[in-house]
Structure formats: C-alpha cells, structure tokens
C-alpha cells in the first residue's frame, strides 16, 4: 500500500471514529445483537436512534450507490466502518433489521433490477426499515431447489401465487419477500422459473413459525393462497429466475463464510477459558485429557487455516471480495470449523454442556447447548455441504456432472 493511500485511509478511519463517538448511544455498548426486537422501551428507542443515524450516513449498506440509500464507499472503507463500530462496543443493526435485504436481495437487485425497482426497494433496505425474507425451499424442493412447485399464474397486471415455501427465515416479521416460483409448468425444471417480489402483508400470505431441535427459530412455513405479486416486481426476465437465484445464493454463501457462528480463530479466548475451567490440567499446565487435547489442537489449526485462507482470498482479490467459486470452499470450511468447535465445547463442559434450561446452569452453558444444536443447520442451509462439494467438483475441478440433469 502506498503512503498516500494509507494516509487517506487513516484520515477516513479518523473521521469514522469521531462520527461513531458522537452518535453511538452509550446505553447500547456491549449489548448482544439478539436484543434487536426486545421489548425494553429505553433500549428499543436507543436502537432506533442509532439505526436512524447510520441510515442518514448511508452506512446500512455503505457500498451501494448514494442514490439508493448507500454511501458509495469501497469494500475496504465499509470494513473500516464495521471495525470502528465494533471498537466502540456496538454493531450495525441495519443488516439484521433488513433480514435478507442487505446481504442478498439488495446486491441481486443492484445487478438485475430495473431503475424503477432499485428506487422502490433499495432505500428501505439500506435504512433497515423494510425487512425481507426469501421464499426458496419447499417441502419437496430442498437441495434440489429447481424441483419446486409453487405456481405463479399470469393475471394480466400481476401474478397469482399458490403453494408452500419452507425455511423462510423471518417470514413472520418481514414486510417483503423474494420468491422463486414456477411461471412455465411445461418447461424443463430450471427453465420455467421466475423470481418475483411481493409484500407479506396481504390476505393471500400466511406464515407459521417452525420450532427446531434448538427451540424457537427464525424459520417459518409460508403459504401462498392466491398471493399477489405485481408484474412490475418481476426481478430479471420471465422464466430466467434460476440465473437470478444462482447469483442470489452466491451472495448468500459469500455472507456465510466468516466462520463466526460459535466463534472461530486459533486463539479465541472463550474456547481457551472453557478448556481451562472445565477440563483438568496436568502439573505442567497441559489439558489432562490427552485425547481431547489432541482433537482440540486439530480444531485450533483448522480454525487458523480457515482464517488465513479468508485473508489470502481477500488479498488476492485486492480488496474486492468477489462472489466466486471460492465461496463453496469457504462455506464448507467455515461450517466444519464452527460445528467442530461446538461439539468440542459441549464435550469440554461434560453434563454442564447438556443443560436445556433452568437456574442450575450458567447462561454461557445454556447458550453453548443451543448454539451446538442450532449449528447443525449451517451444513444444510445455503446449499448443503454435499451440494457445495458438487459445485467444487464440477465448476472448479471440471469433473463431469454428478447429479441427474434437471
């Protein structure tokens, strides 16, 4: 990096830092991200003030054009903003409040949307005022998404949707939905699909939350019963919805590769602290259980290798984190690191790592249990680990198609 660039970078960081100091409500410091939607009046008000301030800067989606509610910044500058907010003990609530809006729907709209569609939908996402969900999977179309059956019938100025979606995350609290639907029943599987946008608050849409092995979840079943999607809200060409969704899912994988989940990174404090607290030590300070120590070490190495790979891919892309085939590699690696970590954490805690609820357990223990169970989803959603392996073997290694052609 040249001196001039880094001087400009420092100046930018300085300006972000003073803005955050002036605008971040102190009562939100170190509050967990899950407080969003919590009932507390004062905190809820502070969160609303914070959201409003960020939206005013265009920092809900800093890399989007200013005309659509963004700030027209580079990915590197956007990272500086996240870092500085994190430094102040806060987080940016807008990507959470917008549901699938900032990470997936928005980037896809920027690529495939008409000017009219961008003006209509992007500012609501970038400000965190409109929450989006996605209607993709169906009970009989999971990994084989192109086999979906929800129909959209042409009614002149609009489509009438009939069918059932599942795993629609946040459907019960979202205002808008992006749905993949069948517009041409006679065409081969992938060729008869279209991607439409529709409001959730209408008589033809019904949602039902799904309880998971980990307890309450953001997932819903969503039923369309003559639900209405305007023709002007068709994203991309008619019957070309598969291309739109492929891109959308690349954005999803790119957003899921950080190996966060229950924490990662070779020297993460919490895993170290837990290991030392729950598993005994030998006289020279080693974990007493040699087998557990060996497996823990392998995990620490995997986590560090993942972290270094994320850094390397970013450096090679010179700061532009492109959605690419690398996303499949990183998703599988992130998944494996975070699931292994969860399994190790509950194993370290013994019975204390199996508590379901109640005063007998510390909050940290109960959270670990729920994270472990919830984490089973990571290798299933967004294209299962097996689907990612299909993508790698076919698109990167050039091996022949392993699945049946649709």
């Amino acid at each position, binding site marked *: 990096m040249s001196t001039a660039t880094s001087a400009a970078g420092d100046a930018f960081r300085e300006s972000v830092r003073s803005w955050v100091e002036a605008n971040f409500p102190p009562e939100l410091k170190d509050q967990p991200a899950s407080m969003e939607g919590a009932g507390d009046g004062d905190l809820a008000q502070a969160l609303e003030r914070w959201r409003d301030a960020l939206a005013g800067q265009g920092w809900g989606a800093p890399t989007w054009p200013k005309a659509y509610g963004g700030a027209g910044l580079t990915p590197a500058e956007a990272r500086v903003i996240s870092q500085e907010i994190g430094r102040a003990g806060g987080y940016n609530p807008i990507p959470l409040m917008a549901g699938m809006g900032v990470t997936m729907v928005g980037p896809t709209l920027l690529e495939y949307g008409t000017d009219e569609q961008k003006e209509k939908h992007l500012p609501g996402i970038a400000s965190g005022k409109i929450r989006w969900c996605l209607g993709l999977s169906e009970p009989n179309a999971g990994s084989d998404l192109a086999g979906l059956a929800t129909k959209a019938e042409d009614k002149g100025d609009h489509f009438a949707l009939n069918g059932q979606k599942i795993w629609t995350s946040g459907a019960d609290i979202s205002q808008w939905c992006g749905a993949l639907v069948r517009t041409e029943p006679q065409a081969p599987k992938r060729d008869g699909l279209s991607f439409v946008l529709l409001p959730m608050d209408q008589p033809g849409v019904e949602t039902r939350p799904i309880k998971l092995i980990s307890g309450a979840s953001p997932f819903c079943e969503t039923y369309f019963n003559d639900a209405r999607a305007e023709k002007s809200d068709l994203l991309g060409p008619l019957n070309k919805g598969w291309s739109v969704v492929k891109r959308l899912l690349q954005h999803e994988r790119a957003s899921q590769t950080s190996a966060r989940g229950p924490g990662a990174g*070779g*020297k993460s404090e919490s895993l*170290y602290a837990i*290991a030392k607290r729950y598993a005994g030590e030998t006289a020279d*300070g*080693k*974990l007493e259980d040699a087998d557990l*120590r*060996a497996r*823990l*070490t*392998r995990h*620490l*190495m*995997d986590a*560090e*290798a*993942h972290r*270094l*790979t994320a*850094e*390397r891919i970013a*450096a*090679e892309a*010179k700061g532009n984190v492109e959605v690419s085939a*690398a996303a499949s*590699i990183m998703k*599988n*690696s992130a998944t494996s690191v975070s699931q292994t970590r969860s399994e190790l954490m509950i194993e370290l805690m013994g019975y204390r790592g199996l508590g379901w609820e109640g005063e007998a357990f510390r909050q940290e223990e109960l959270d670990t249990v729920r994270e472990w169970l919830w984490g089973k989803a990571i290798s299933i959603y967004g294209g299962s680990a*097996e689907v*990612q*392996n*299909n993508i*790698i*073997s*076919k698109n*990167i*290694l*050039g*091996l*022949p*198609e*392993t699945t049946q052609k649709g």
Partner: protein
Amino acid sequence: MAALTEEQTLIRDQAEAWVRDEFPVTKFRAMRDSKAAGAIMGDAWQGMVEMGWTGILVPEAHGGSDLGYLTFGLVLEALGKNLTASPLLASALVGASALRLAGSEAQQAAVLPGVVDGSIILSLAVDEGARHNPAQTACTATAQGDGFVLKGEKRFVLEGMSATHFIVPARTAGAPGEEAGLTLFLVAADAAGLSRTGLSLVDSRGYADVTLDNVAVGADAVLGEVDGAFPVLDAVLDRARAGLSAEMMGTAGQAFTMLVDYLKTREQFGRVIGSFQALGHRAAQMFTDQQLARSCAEAALASIDNDAPASTVAEMASLAKARVGDHLHLVSRELIQMHGGIGMTDEYDAGFYLKRARALEATYGNQAFHRERYASLLGY
C-alpha cells in the same frame, strides 16, 4: 497463491517452466535407477546455481539476492512438483539461514559466497534418532585448548553424502532432553574423525548417518553463542519447516493434478469415474484442504519475511508443517487408491509421490510433533 510482486511472479514462472521442460519425473526415475552417488541430479544442481536460486537468502554483500523466504518457497514448490532432487533446501535455505542467524560477519563472508556458487554444500546434522527431537541432542562438544572436540552420532542427515560442511548442534552443557546447553558448530565433511555412511530410503534421496569420533574444531567453528544455541536452532528449523511446507505443496499439488486428470479420463461402467460422487466429493474435499494448507504455508513464509516475533514464526511454522503434512498424506494416499492397480506399479509415477510424501512428512518433525508443539505454544 499469495499476491505476488512482479519479480516473484517472474521467478515462479521461470522455475515452473524449468522444472516442466528440463526436469520431468523421468529424470528423477533415471537417477533412482542409476543409484547415483549422493542422490543428486547433478545437472539440475548446476542449473539451480546458474538460475541464482542458491543466493535467494544470501545478502547481496555475499553474492546473493536476498529476496526472502516467500520467493524461495515459490522455487521449492516448483521443484516439489517433479521431485527434482538437489541440496537446494538443505544448503541454500537451512544452511544459509543458520549462517545468517548465528554466524558472525567473518563466518558469513567465508561460507556464503561458496553456498551461492555451489562449491559449498551445507547440511544441518540435527537428528540423532529416527524421530525428530532436537532437544534430545546427546552428541557432545568438549572444550579442549582453544577449541572443542565433538563426539556423537547424527542420523538421517539430509544430503549427507554430498554435503561439504555440516552444521552440528552439540551439547556443551546439560543433559539430553534439556534445551539449554547446546552449541552450533560448522564442521567440514573431510575433518579428521568424521565418517559418513549413505542410507537408502524409499524416496531415493541422499540421506547419511554421520559419525563424529573425536573431531577437533577451532573456536572459529562455533556459530553463535556457546551453550545457548537452542533458540537460534529452533529459528533455523522453523525456516526449514516453512520452506519444506512449500516444497510439499508442490508435491501434493502435482499428485492432485495427476489424480484429477485420471478421474477425467479413466472409464468404468461406461462412464468416466470422476462422474461418481464417491470420488468427486473426495476430490472436492481434497481441493478445499489444499486451499487451506496453502494459506498456512504462505503465512509461515511471510511471517519470516515480515520479521514477526520468533514465537509467531514458531506457531506459523508448526501450523504449516502439520497442516500441509496432513494434506500431502491424504492426497498421496488417495492418488494410489483412485488409480487402482495401475497406481501400484513401479512403472507408474504415483508411487514416487507416496514415498516422497512420507519422507517429507518425517523431516524436521512430523504432524504429531508439530501439533504437540502448536498446542504447547498456545498454552494448551
């Protein structure tokens, strides 16, 4: 691949072209079949000197180019692809690093120009048993007059038959198992009392057992501090481990290329076998593993070039050697398995990669050694 400078890209491309055009695996096979003395491909070694690779880690004042470890790693990776046998790593990386880290200006001036022009071949004679464990050094150096007398056995010394000089860690104090009490000595291979015996290992490279039977050396043979050599020995070994990881990425990379090519061409049951998910998914996992391993190898090399603290370099070197070792182990096994019977034949090259893989894994600490070291470094 790391974001490379123009110069690095040039050196990498040059090395890859040289290996591809001049040193196909048939050359390695010919060397093995001829049981060449010292197990070096002589013409390859001369070529490497001419390309300037022996000087990559040598300061310009001593005739080198001082381009750093990541650059050296690019060359080693290219050489690893076709199993090109030479003392480049032993002499120009491990030996040159020892001189730079421990040697005085006068010692560097006396030795490094010879390393660059190939007339001096250095080798670190560290192991004394079948498993790497430098702290267990038992070989002794007893003060006598102005100098020392060395006595002991060094085993499985890399390029032991072709080396002109050995760098010998010996105990001037303490007992085997202790890190304190070690001293490094530079000993000429033709010193009185030094004898060596070539060993034949599966990878057909030039290992030797070296016996030091009361070898007398002067005070000027001491590299660095008396009694306090362990930290610098460890630093030299970490450079060796990082460099070796780069060579291993080359060997694993070529093995994986052979494997994927075979999956695309071999037909059974009326289709190419790469269309079977049971094989395709294993290949996909190996590719993912390769990407993760590469990041570790490059990070280890870069940490040295960036003057990271010794503890960080140690963590990164152990991470790289273990993670790349696991990767090479996996790919070399699958190379044979996915080829089926043809992979078992001596006529086919797959076996060379399996054999070399295990030798590379064992050198300077196998995966178990480095996982243990990594855990200890992190406080587990």
